[in-house]
């Protein structure tokens, strides 16, 4: 444990030092990046060795003689720590050239301070081993990320995003409090181990409450509304960490509660799987409809959380129906996707950050042709896109492959387990197809074709640390995609530590499957080389000329004629109209000398629409009526507090 706390200490000291040297821009950045990187790196080395030895370490501190803060690193926490430290490390390195606003050194220093707090608190969340410690770390994590979201607080939309995130994370935390409160009410203990002794009905309520609470952090539909606002507002390396690992702490919470409750009913599996399917499909549909690159990626995180939940849901159904192979495969697939998603999503956010940094716009339809000037960024983003679509031979495929096999194992079951497995498989297929459409849109419209506006002309991709981080992540995507056996031990250890009634005896199918994935990737690579050789053979000594694109007879093409992201997606979105209504603003062209016209479209998120209608408006109405309670007299407020406490004493 001491090495773990040492790394946390180094990370936090990096944050504090950057505040101390807030006036010297270069020095603060150098110190912060150096210490944060060292902290993450030592932490990473430590947890990887811990995970491979799969031991458990433990530490406890007394705090104010009332609460004991206890921490524990088991295989499950170590697995999440790997993702947290890896992504934070690369995001920190990336930030060195990204944070170049030397006019606002104090703001940069504050950013690094909260960034260090965020990394540390995420690490503490997944190691906390009683409810008090957990909630404490959880709140620190939510608050520090809130301050990171409002980094550019002078823009009203960022403040709105921050506010929305604040409300969501606290309503979520309230649900977790409620769940923990039920546990405390029954057992009178803050220990996690007490959860097991609840009666069954209470277990169901606790699971549902914590699912909602953790789901609002993870971005499960319909609690995802904050994601598409918060991610675009935060600086890109923060978005990478938030989307890549912070939302995974929500998934960690769900898994942890499931393990602690140790109540293996089909109901939990069904809830998780259905939530996963809805998040997955709607997430990627909304992503497809976005015009803002970072909003698109945020919605795509909702989709990937959906895929992870499908894997976990299938695993839970496998546990409940006593099918150890299905359970092991489902959980391992879900865990692998957690790790994989943190890698390619942070890569894509870093790519989007580079685009934003150099062009100054996040609007997809304003860009185009960037790959010509941004070779490394373009290649990295293409690799990230291929991986996120789950295509072989990239890492996204590996996790989805396991989830598919798990699902097919469930197809042989009967009744609801059969229906749910089919549901999971088909949705995964549909999600895959939609993701392909969504990310060909990103590649095709942002990086290919011709620049649509001046913002995309004459860009460069200077910033070695940014390129370094992206290249490393892209490299990891390929390596895991071809040699999954290199990391398969990490999720397997994490899953077998869950203690769900199956253990390492099931290792054999995994080694076989990873071998098959390597084999098929090798076949593909060899064939690719062969076809490239064939192409080279036929082009040898040939006359190759350059010309304009064939305009089908039209001789005056302009860049404005290119297909835009909106038109590319409109065909598919039409199919999903009931779930994703489109609002358009387009004054008609009238008269002989028509006015200049425009076209605006916006894809509406039904969760957001209904949230406004069903929750926000009634709440506003109610509180408007209660406004008389608040009239600014502080004595009266103290009176309220006293009254509330006295009233409560009657019940306790």
């Amino acid at each position, binding site marked *: 444990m001491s090495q773990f706390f040492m790394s946390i200490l180094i990370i936090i000291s990096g944050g504090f030092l950057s505040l101390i040297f807030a006036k010297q821009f270069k020095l603060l950045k150098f110190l912060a990046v150096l210490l944060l990187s060292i902290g993450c790196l030592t932490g990473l080395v430590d947890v990887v060795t811990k995970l491979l030895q799969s031991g458990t370490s433990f530490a406890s501190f007394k705090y104010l003689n009332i609460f004991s803060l206890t921490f524990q690193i088991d295989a499950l926490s170590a697995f999440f720590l790997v993702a947290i430290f890896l992504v934070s490390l690369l995001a920190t390195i990336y930030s060195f050239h990204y944070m170049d606003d030397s006019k606002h050194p104090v703001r940069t220093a504050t950013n690094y301070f909260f960034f260090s707090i965020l990394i540390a608190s995420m690490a503490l969340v997944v190691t906390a081993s009683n409810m008090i410690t957990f909630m404490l770390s959880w709140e620190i994590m939510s608050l520090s990320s809130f301050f990171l979201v409002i980094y550019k607080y002078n823009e009203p939309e960022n403040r709105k995003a921050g506010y929305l995130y604040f409300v969501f994370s606290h309503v979520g935390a309230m649900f977790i409090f409620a769940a923990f409160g039920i546990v405390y009410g029954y057992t009178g203990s803050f220990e996690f181990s007490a959860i097991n002794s609840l009666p069954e009905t209470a277990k169901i309520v606790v699971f549902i409450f914590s699912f909602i609470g953790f789901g609002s952090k993870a971005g499960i539909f319909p609690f995802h509304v904050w994601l598409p606002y918060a991610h675009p507002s935060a600086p890109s390396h923060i978005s990478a960490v938030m989307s890549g690992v912070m939302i995974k702490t929500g998934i960690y919470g769900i898994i942890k509660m499931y393990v602690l409750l140790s109540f293996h009913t089909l109901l939990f599996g069904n809830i998780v799987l259905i939530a996963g399917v809805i998040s997955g499909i709607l997430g990627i549909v909304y992503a497809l409809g976005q015009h803002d690159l970072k909003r698109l990626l945020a919605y795509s995180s909702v989709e990937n959380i959906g895929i992870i939940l499908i894997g976990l849901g299938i695993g839970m159904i496998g546990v409940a129906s006593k099918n150890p192979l299905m359970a092991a495969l489902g959980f391992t697939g879900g865990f692998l996707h957690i790790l994989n998603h943190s890698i390619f999503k942070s890569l894509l956010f870093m790519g989007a950050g580079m685009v934003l940094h150099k062009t100054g716009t996040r609007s997809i339809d304003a860009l*185009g042709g960037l790959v010509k000037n941004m070779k490394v960024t373009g290649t990295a983003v293409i690799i990230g896109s291929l991986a996120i679509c789950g295509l072989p031979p990239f890492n996204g495929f590996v996790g989805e492959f396991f989830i*598919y096999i798990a699902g097919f194992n469930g*197809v042989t079951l009967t009744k609801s387990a059969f229906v749910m497995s089919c549901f999971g498989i088909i949705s995964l297929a549909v999600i895959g197809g939609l993701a392909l459409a969504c990310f060909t849109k990103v590649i095709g419209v942002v990086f*290919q*074709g011709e620049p649509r506006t001046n913002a995309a002309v004459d860009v460069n991709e200077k910033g070695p640390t940014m390129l370094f981080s992206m290249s490393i992540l892209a490299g990891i995507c390929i390596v895991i995609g071809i040699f999954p056996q290199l990391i398969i031990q990490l999720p397997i250890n994490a899953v077998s530590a869950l203690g769900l009634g199956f253990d390492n005896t099931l290792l054999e199918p995994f080694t076989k499957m990873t071998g098959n994935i390597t084999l098929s990737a090798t076949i593909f690579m060899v064939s690719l080389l062969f076809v490239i050789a064939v192409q080279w053979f036929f082009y040898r000594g040939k*006359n190759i000329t350059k010309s304009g694109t064939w305009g089908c007879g039209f001789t005056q093409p302009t860049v404005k004629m290119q*297909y835009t992201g909106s038109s590319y997606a409109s065909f598919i979105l039409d199919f999903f109209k009931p779930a994703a209504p489109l609002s358009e603003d387009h004054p008609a062209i009238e008269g002989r000398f028509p006015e200049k016209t425009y076209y605006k479209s916006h894809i509406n998120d039904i969760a957001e629409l209904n949230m406004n209608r069903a929750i926000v408006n009634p709440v506003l109405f109610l509180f408007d009526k209660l406004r008389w309670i608040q009239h600014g007299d502080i004595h009266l407020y103290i009176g309220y507090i006293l009254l509330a406490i006295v009233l409560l004493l009657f019940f306790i």
Partner: protein
Amino acid sequence: MTESIILWILAILLAPLFAGIIFKVKAFFGGRLGSPLLINYYTLIKLMKKGSVYSNSTTVIFRLGPIISLCSAIVVLMFLPIAGRAPIFSFNGDVIFILYLLGLGRFFTIAAAMDTASPFEGMGAAREAYFPIICEATMFMILIFFFRLTGELKLSAYFAGSSTMTLWNLAGAPLLFIVIAFFIILLTENSRVPVDDPATHLELTMIHEVMILDHSGPDLGLIELGAFCKLFFYSTIITKLILPFDYGLSAITFGLYIAGLIIVYIAIGVTESVIARYRMDKVPQFILTSFALAFFATIITLEFLK
């Protein structure tokens, strides 16, 4: 193994020949003599002899498009039991790999189209991204059906040797649905009428053809060859489903196989001759029919196999 490799090479070499049958059938319905059966070879040779013109807008991705689409098609054939014989490679889960590999090919075809900055190619790409989504759902529904019957996730467990016959004996009636569903997928994935018309002359109405407008010379040849291989892949599956008989390594097996292939290609030709292309917004309904069929087939097997 050598036998499988020889069959694989033959499949790639003969795929253009069978595609020629479709032209003949269409010519017959049009009352014409039609082009010679070997027309596709002449086209390929002509293309391979030429040089290329590349658009100024394009990048290296444009050149990767043809390579990866052909590569994915020939790798897919390696996993396919040709004439019911064992494929070169086979492992549990290879079907998932194959479907995603075809997805990879599609990704790069779309990316190559978007690379040209042409509005027409963008339009084709948008359609190409849309329709296969429903096809994939159908394919996985069919896989669920097969998995319930065989408990395996590999092509060789469904289409090699006598296994197809076993499938018919287990669940003959629902398998009829699957054959029709497969045929609809074949028409969609290979851009045939009524989903797409490869012979149309108006770019606005095309899907696949418009995406490769800017490819020329050997690049275009590679794309064409890839398309022939892909069509051959789906045709072989349907052939084995409609003629599931197995006579070991004998002339009868190959005779039946070739006869089956000819039937499938003639069926494609007849379909193209007697119906027109659907309006674009009707196409999803047509493809969804295949999903409904596969779905019902699976539901029926629930009752058959208790």
